[in-house]
């Protein structure tokens, strides 16, 4: 072929030791893998049923208790105990309650690096594409196979390029850009494919904002999502993998970031995205700042800047779940958390919180929620009779302040 390669093709080629192009079936050595309290119990069970006795490499496998943590009932408490016992027996890492959301924990603790192949038993694992890793979500049995063999089978994906021109306006963020991209591609538009973000609008984005971009490729059905490492700053030296100039893309989507106003995903699908102006004034009773999408230090600071010296509207509750213990420490150290709590926010444990409907803030019937999370499917937060709008931290904070959906740019 002699054509250039995408970032995914380069990473897979480096791992398989032979030229790997879109469409090639390959068995890939995995640099790191992870499971949570939703997926690990089934993975541990499948690992045993496969004949697994010892993990292929305990140093590369991580367990995180984040989805229902601390345990809300005895059933889940026993699953957590099973994970702790397994980690103890196998000598692998166990990130217990309060450590944070699996994806933030992996990045905070440098368990995933640029150029890695990473498999996580959680659909938002592509988040690590912010670092330039090839990271995919898998189910429990695929993960058990990684635990046993250190490998995964994959079809190398074709890649969709998302070119983001210009520069985001002050009150628009990576979340607004990500939602616009989900709208453009739809909830199934990147199925079996990789997504690569390029362009001036993403070059200036922080690691946190890049994580938001990659996180939401799950809502396009993508296998993985990677932000071109141009402009990426990490607190350690790293080797960046760039796409070739003549890389072959399945298609290219172009977004003019300069004119991108704050977005909102309307119930009940994350690709049901619109300009928030059209929903300005919709009454809300519950605002949530959390999840692997948007609960990092910069997200909390944006919210604090909007709420500083003010108080959330009467009849609204604002729940905040920092993405990790490190995020919480940082937000305590610079006063961000104090500002938010003084404004009436309720701080809950670092973890997935109410995003996945298991505990810590299930909405009531007919309630309207505005959330920084990633999914607004019916019943997502534990009640099919509530409706969920998704927006940026700025949008959620401004909406909590006023008691209705609010454009933070106004």
């Amino acid at each position: 072929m002699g054509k250039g390669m995408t970032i995914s093709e380069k990473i897979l080629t480096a791992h398989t030791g032979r030229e790997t192009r879109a469409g090639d079936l390959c068995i890939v050595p995995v640099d790191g893998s992870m499971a949570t309290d939703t997926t690990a119990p089934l993975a541990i069970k499948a690992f045993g049923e496969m004949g697994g006795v010892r993990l292929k490499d305990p140093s590369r496998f991580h367990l995180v208790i984040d989805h229902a943590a601390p345990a809300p009932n005895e059933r889940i408490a026993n699953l957590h105990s099973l994970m702790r016992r397994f980690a103890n027996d196998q000598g692998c890492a166990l990130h217990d309650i309060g450590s944070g959301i699996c994806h933030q924990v992996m990045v905070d603790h440098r368990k995933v690096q640029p150029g890695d192949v990473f498999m996580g038993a959680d659909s938002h694992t592509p988040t690590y594409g912010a670092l330039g890793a090839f990271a995919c979500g898998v189910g429990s049995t695929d993960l058990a196979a990684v635990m046993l063999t250190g490998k995964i089978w994959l079809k190398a994906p074709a890649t969709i390029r998302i070119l983001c021109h210009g520069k985001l306006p002050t009150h628009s963020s990576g979340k607004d850009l990500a939602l616009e991209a989900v709208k453009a591609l739809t909830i199934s538009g990147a199925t079996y494919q990789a997504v690569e973000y390029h362009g001036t609008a993403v070059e200036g984005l922080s690691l946190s904002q890049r994580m938001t971009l990659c996180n939401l490729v799950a809502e396009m059905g993508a296998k993985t999502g990677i932000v071109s490492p141009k402009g990426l700053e990490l607190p350690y030296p790293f080797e960046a993998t760039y796409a070739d100039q003549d890389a072959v893309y399945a298609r290219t989507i172009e977004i003019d970031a300069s004119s991108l106003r704050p977005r909102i995903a309307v119930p009940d699908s994350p690709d049901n995205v619109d300009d928030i102006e059209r929903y300005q004034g919709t009454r809300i009773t519950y605002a949530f700042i959390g999840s692997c999408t948007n609960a990092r230090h910069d997200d909390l600071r944006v919210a604090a800047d909007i709420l500083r010296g003010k108080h959330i509207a009467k009849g609204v509750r604002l729940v905040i779940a920092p993405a990790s213990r490190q995020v919480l420490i940082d937000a305590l150290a610079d006063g961000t958390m104090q500002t938010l709590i003084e404004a009436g926010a309720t701080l809950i444990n670092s973890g997935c919180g109410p995003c996945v409907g298991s505990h810590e803030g299930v909405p009531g019937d007919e309630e309207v929620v505005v959330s920084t999370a990633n999914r607004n499917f019916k019943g997502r937060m534990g009640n099919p009779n509530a409706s969920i709008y998704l927006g940026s931290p700025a949008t959620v904070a401004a909406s909590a302040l006023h008691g209705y959906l609010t454009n933070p740019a106004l």
Partner: protein
Amino acid sequence: MINGRAHRYGDNIDTDRIIPGKYTKTLDISSLADHVMEDLDPHFKQKFRIGDILPAGDNFGCGSSREQAPIALKAAGISCIIARFYARIFFRNAINIGLPVLEVPNHEIQDGDALEIDMENGIVRNLSQGDLHQSTQLPKVMMDIVAEGGLVPYLRKYGDYHID
């Protein structure tokens, strides 16, 4: 050969609707079957007989990676799912746990149709409409996993992946 009655569902059936997150944290498989599809169709449990078939539209099983979704459908006694296409994690999970799934683009199966499925050759015969559909071919490694009844028996037998 699978014979059963079709209960047709639409596009983009997400895993939150197949099995809500509040029920997923368990190793008790029968408790998953109790709540399968309840937010999508409150009458699902009454409607379905063991062995019935679930045809759907595009992107079946999108969203979460929870393997509890295909496990719940299998535990509820669904004999086969036929979608125009699947979300990728759900599709892998279903194959891995041994739930029969076929990808049949452009199928027009209606609610209540009587179907006869030849899993080995991927042929869906619609006895009510009198037509026949061929499923898309799986990659070799997936066919081998299907042949063993899932990824657990596959790896118990081979100990590792093999691609010719």
